[in-house]
């Protein structure tokens, strides 16, 4: 039996004005378990708290009921008070007789009567309370960042700067991501490489950061603070520790016909390659699909020319296992395929290109050394048409386009148009747009400059059909403001393809038990208040894996994710919320209903032995809740058909006791 003390607060006249507090204290005196009951003017004041502390000692109280304001206001206060008096803080219950009683009911008898009932409910609940101790789990002080684009780089640098070790896993041979492929960046037009590559070097030189390039996450186990991750380091057939990145092997490699993915297939590279000059790590990689030595054992030229002796044809994939306290997803985006949009003749003409291809075409390190030349014949294009929203805002057909706005296209198209007019003022540049969306600092000014200073021709309307004929692209579009159909014989057409999450994101989400939306973007723990956290504790989101965003937004989100990670890693132990679910394994059927409704992936199953009759042992599948991951919503408790699942602090019996007290 509990020894319960009841403390009725006047809250000045806030409560006492409508509720007869003395009558409440008196009425509750006779409730089961109550050994002490009193009232006081301000229970939350130091004097009021002292009153509680003294009563705990004097009457050997095991439980406390405070009839006062909302628990959302002072529950934490009174829990601390209990703690200070040597009582478990979870032995405190609050009866909300202010917000729910004195402030909303005008008549004293009614208010008093209701206050008594609310007090009884709280007493009934405390009678069933048990001391709760928050679970503790250690924190592995190392973070994993998946994806080495600008989002991953920024997150890793920020975490490392706070003194924690970070590993970056990047599936490509170098970090840098999409930003490394860009030419200039809006709205300031500084060159992407100039601002990105120093950061890449910082990453390489930071003692706290390890880069696993050409690597992929294979498996994830564990939970917040204690993840165990398997990383596959793919064989690059070059010893990273020996390779100096001198490039002698590349020069001599006889296999010259490999499509260069860094330039989106617009030129070729060798079978042994370094993606671009500022690659980090600057180490060669052999492409096994094209290397003659690996394919049929005939060549070996690179070995001969490698002074460092770094070439190793026998290298195998390597598995690395590491523990992490936090995981940041920064898997980024890809432009969607243009296969399904052949009304724009992408497959029919080399001169219809995507915006990312246009970036490479204008980049000094690109296939044309920065000269804007048509891919088909290397001629300078005199008329260029840009088409926005290709595959974005497309709800008609899910396999074709994306229903969302890709967000970045308006600005980069303005940038492309402006740069073209700047470099080649003789070029006629037309942009077809549905809406120009420029909500960002200096964004609209930028787009207007493209029109007003650089004379880019913006047409409100969409392109309907592109017909390649001779060396021209016959573009048919609409001008909705003039109510005309526009026909342009263009030399080059640039499609602003919608962006979608990287294909690796979906399997990764499954490994992490992190949720995704229908578009395969990772969902946030809360769309407004917790935008960089995944609902799965310990998993954080950085960059476009969460939704389309531009570089400044990505960098700020990357920093925010890093600060969340730092906040987690600086703790020695994670103290959980003790009000979590747990399963009574004797009653658990192992039916998986609870697991299906858990939003956090906190429930797993194990086979457990139970003693049976006649010295036998029965093995059954039972649910296990990880208290470090459970957030205490209680969805599982109702899904559980046998009632094995219960929620500490809000147990079935406790809530029913409250119901009974109210309905008595």
């Amino acid at each position, binding site marked *: 039996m509990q020894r319960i003390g009841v403390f009725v607060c006047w809250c000045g006249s806030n409560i006492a004005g409508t509720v007869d507090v003395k009558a409440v204290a008196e009425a509750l005196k006779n409730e089961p378990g109550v050994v002490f009951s009193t009232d006081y003017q301000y229970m939350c004041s130091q004097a009021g708290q002292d009153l509680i502390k003294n009563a705990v000692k004097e009457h050997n109280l095991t439980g406390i009921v405070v009839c006062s304001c*909302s*628990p*959302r*206001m002072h529950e934490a206060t009174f829990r601390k008070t209990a703690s200070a008096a040597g009582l478990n803080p979870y032995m405190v219950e609050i009866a*909300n007789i*202010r*917000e*729910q*009683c004195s*402030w*909303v*009911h*005008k008549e004293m008898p*009614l*208010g008093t*009567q*209701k206050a008594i*009932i*609310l007090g009884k*409910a709280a007493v009934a609940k405390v009678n069933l309370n048990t001391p709760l101790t928050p679970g503790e789990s250690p924190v592995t002080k190392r973070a994993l960042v998946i994806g080495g684009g600008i989002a991953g780089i920024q997150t890793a640098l920020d975490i490392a700067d706070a003194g924690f070790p970070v590993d970056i896993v990047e599936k490509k041979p170098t970090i840098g991501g999409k930003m490394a492929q860009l030419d200039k960046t809006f709205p300031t037009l500084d060159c992407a490489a100039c601002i990105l590559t120093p950061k890449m070097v910082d990453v390489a030189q930071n003692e706290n950061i390890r880069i696993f390039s050409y690597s992929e996450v294979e498996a994830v186990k564990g939970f917040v603070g204690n993840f165990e991750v398997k990383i596959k380091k793919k064989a690059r057939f070059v010893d990273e520790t020996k390779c100096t990145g001198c490039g002698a092997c590349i020069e001599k490699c006889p296999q010259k016909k490999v499509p260069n993915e860094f330039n989106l297939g617009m030129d070729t590279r060798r079978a042994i390659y370094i993606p671009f000059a500022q690659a980090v790590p600057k180490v060669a990689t052999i492409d096994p699909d094209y290397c003659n030595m690996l394919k049929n054992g005939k060549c070996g030229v690179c070995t001969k020319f490698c002074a460092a002796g770094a070439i190793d044809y026998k290298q195998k994939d390597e598995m690395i296992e590491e523990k992490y306290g936090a995981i940041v997803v920064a898997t980024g985006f890809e432009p969607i395929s243009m296969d399904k949009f052949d009304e724009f003749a992408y497959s029919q003409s080399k001169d219809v290109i995507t915006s990312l291809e246009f970036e490479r075409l204008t980049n000094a390190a690109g296939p044309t050394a920065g000269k804007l030349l048509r891919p088909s014949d290397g001629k300078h294009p005199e008329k260029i048409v840009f088409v926005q929203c290709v595959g974005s805002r497309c709800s008609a057909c899910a396999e074709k386009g994306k229903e969302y706005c890709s967000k970045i296209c308006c600005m980069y198209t303005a940038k492309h148009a402006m740069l073209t007019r700047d470099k080649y003022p003789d070029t006629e540049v037309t942009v077809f747009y549905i809406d120009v969306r420029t909500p960002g600092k200096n964004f609209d000014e930028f787009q207007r400059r493209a029109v007003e200073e650089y004379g880019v021709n913006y047409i409100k309307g969409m392109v309907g059909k592109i017909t390649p004929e001779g060396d021209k692209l016959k573009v048919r579009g609409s001008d909705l403001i003039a109510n005309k159909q526009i026909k342009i014989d263009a030399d080059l057409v640039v499609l602003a393809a919608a962006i979608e999450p990287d294909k690796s994101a979906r399997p990764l989400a499954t490994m992490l038990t992190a*949720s995704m939306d229908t578009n395969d973007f990772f*969902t946030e*723990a*809360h769309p407004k208040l917790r935008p960089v956290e995944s*609902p799965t504790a310990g998993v954080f989101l950085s960059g476009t894996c969460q939704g389309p965003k531009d570089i400044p937004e990505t960098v700020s989100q990357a920093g925010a994710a890093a600060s969340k990670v730092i906040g987690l890693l600086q703790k020695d132990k994670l103290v959980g919320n003790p*009000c979590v679910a747990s399963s009574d394994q004797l009653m658990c059927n192992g039916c998986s209903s609870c697991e299906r*409704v858990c*939003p956090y992936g906190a429930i797993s199953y194990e086979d457990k032995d139970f003693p049976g009759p006649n010295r036998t042992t029965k093995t059954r599948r039972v649910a296990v809740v990880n208290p470090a991951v459970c*957030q*205490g*919503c*209680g*969805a599982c*408790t*109702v*899904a559980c058909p046998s009632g094995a699942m219960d*929620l500490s602090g*809000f147990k*079935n019996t406790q*809530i*029913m006791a*409250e*119901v*009974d007290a*109210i*309905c*008595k």
Partner: protein
Amino acid sequence: MQMKEYKPLIVAFCCNWCSYAGADLAGNNRLNYPAEVKIIRVPCSCRVNPMFILRAFQRGADGVIICGCHPGDCHYTSGNYYTRRRMATLFSMLDYLGIEKERTRVEWVSAAEGAKFAATMNDFVKTVASLGENKRLEDLRCKR
């Protein structure tokens, strides 16, 4: 009529993050609603087991209302979606048993909707009061 004198007993289950806060806001703004409403705090509307509702009716409640965050705003991301399915099917079943459907309700009340909370409770109490005492839930077994 006698009906008007009758004061029903209402149990309201409120989720901690939205509806309980909405009720607090109603208090802060001194928006009156009948004292017949008694609130039980649960972490999420999805914590409300149908057994609690039936228990309340069993012990003499005249109406039960469940308040949670608006769909899409659940603190736990998806709890109220389960509540919605559970209660839709449960209430339909009670209706099927001939139990007045007006005695049960689900309402989404956000932390900012103090006024909605008070209005909802006023309306619900009025509705339940007009039905009179809850007899059916108690009387289903015994023919009278």
